């Protein structure tokens, strides 16, 4: 049928792994509630598969062969690669959507060169979203990756083109497909500055994102993002590609910088599809 849902959410490992360390438990529980609402909204669309557009952290791709884009069409996946106690998510298998993934990839390749993978190990960047959005791990998943980790990174305008290609591909198949982009806005994860958040930069980015203003969204250099949003800010690529796929305005359902133990401004949003 087509793309039936597009949204974005945070994926930082602390969201599940450090839940017990949170001081502002009311804000934490509000965040969890919004993630559960996102789950219900996806389920209400009747989606038959979920594309998780992620910014992975060296679970599969390394600098020996780093794709700008990759799409998974394995029969099944496993995760998390991290210590399950550290992440707060037990190791599990996740069903794939191999036939659908192949058909989508064929169409996407008409305009964007993508790598594909029939093997894929999920790290927190996909497992944290799945923990909230498909807690029984029964939804067929199509993992997608944009290189936000190993410079040279995927250019923002190519992430936009990739999002448009995903939309065109989804609209060319009979299945109902949901798409979530998952990343951070400003953050400095995995450094001593973990917990640092540039709220003003985040809110400006989210304003551009919710307006789905292509020109404003692509108007960041990596140098500016690194200075203002940290290396974690490079993950805006997944949000930008999701906006491109949706084409409609966004609705910010949740944002808070008040959970620094999660090391990111926690975000949940959805887009109208146009």
């Amino acid at each position, binding site marked *: 049928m087509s793309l039936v849902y597009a949204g974005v959410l945070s994926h930082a490992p602390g969201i599940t792994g450090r839940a017990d360390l949170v001081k502002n438990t009311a804000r934490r529980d509000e965040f969890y509630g919004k993630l559960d609402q996102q789950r219900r909204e996806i389920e209400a669309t009747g989606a038959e598969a979920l594309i998780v557009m992620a910014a992975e*952290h060296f679970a599969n791709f390394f600098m020996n062969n780093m794709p700008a884009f990759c799409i998974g069409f394995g029969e099944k996946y496993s995760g998390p690669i991290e210590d399950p106690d550290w992440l707060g998510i037990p190791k599990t298998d996740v069903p794939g959507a191999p036939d659908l993934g192949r058909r989508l990839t064929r169409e996407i390749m008409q305009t964007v060169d993508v790598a594909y993978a029939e093997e894929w190990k999920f790290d927190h960047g996909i497992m944290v979203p799945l923990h909230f959005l498909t807690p029984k791990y029964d939804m067929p998943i199509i993992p997608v990756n944009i290189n936000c980790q190993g410079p040279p990174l995927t250019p923002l305008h190519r992430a936009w083109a990739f999002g448009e290609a995903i939309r065109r591909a989804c609209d060319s198949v009979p299945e109902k497909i949901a798409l979530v982009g998952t990343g951070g806005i400003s953050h400095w994860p995995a450094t001593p500055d973990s917990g640092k958040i540039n709220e003003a930069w985040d809110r400006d980015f989210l304003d551009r994102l919710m307006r789905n203003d292509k020109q404003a969204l692509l108007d960041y250099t990596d140098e500016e993002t690194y200075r203002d949003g940290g290396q974690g800010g490079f993950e805006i690529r997944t949000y930008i590609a999701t906006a491109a796929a949706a084409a409609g305005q966004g609705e910010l359902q949740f944002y808070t910088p008040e959970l620094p*133990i999660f090391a990111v401004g926690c975000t949940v949003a959805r887009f109208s599809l146009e």
Partner: protein
Amino acid sequence: MSLYSLQKFLYELNRDEAVQKQCRDDMDALLEKFDLTDEEQTALRDGDIGLLYVLGVNGQILMHFAAFLGIEWFDYLELMRQGIRQHGPVRAGVYAMTGGGDSFTEEDSR
């Protein structure tokens, strides 16, 4: 300089339970497979998070290694700070510390 090999070692370790088992059973044999300096080998053998951080190991790769070693969250952050105090600023990559090492996490009350 063999930062590439150092990160490759940790990448393989982080994602593969068989490599993790070998790491526990026979670390020396595992280290032999990678082109590493003596300093890097020692840092890996000792689980020296601070030195590995300063050498420029990508933060995500290092964070997963710290989790594998069972290091608690705030201890992990402090080990990176100690590494900078002992060895100087991060030498490569994009995971440099931006400030003076203060905690940005209110929960870190120590």
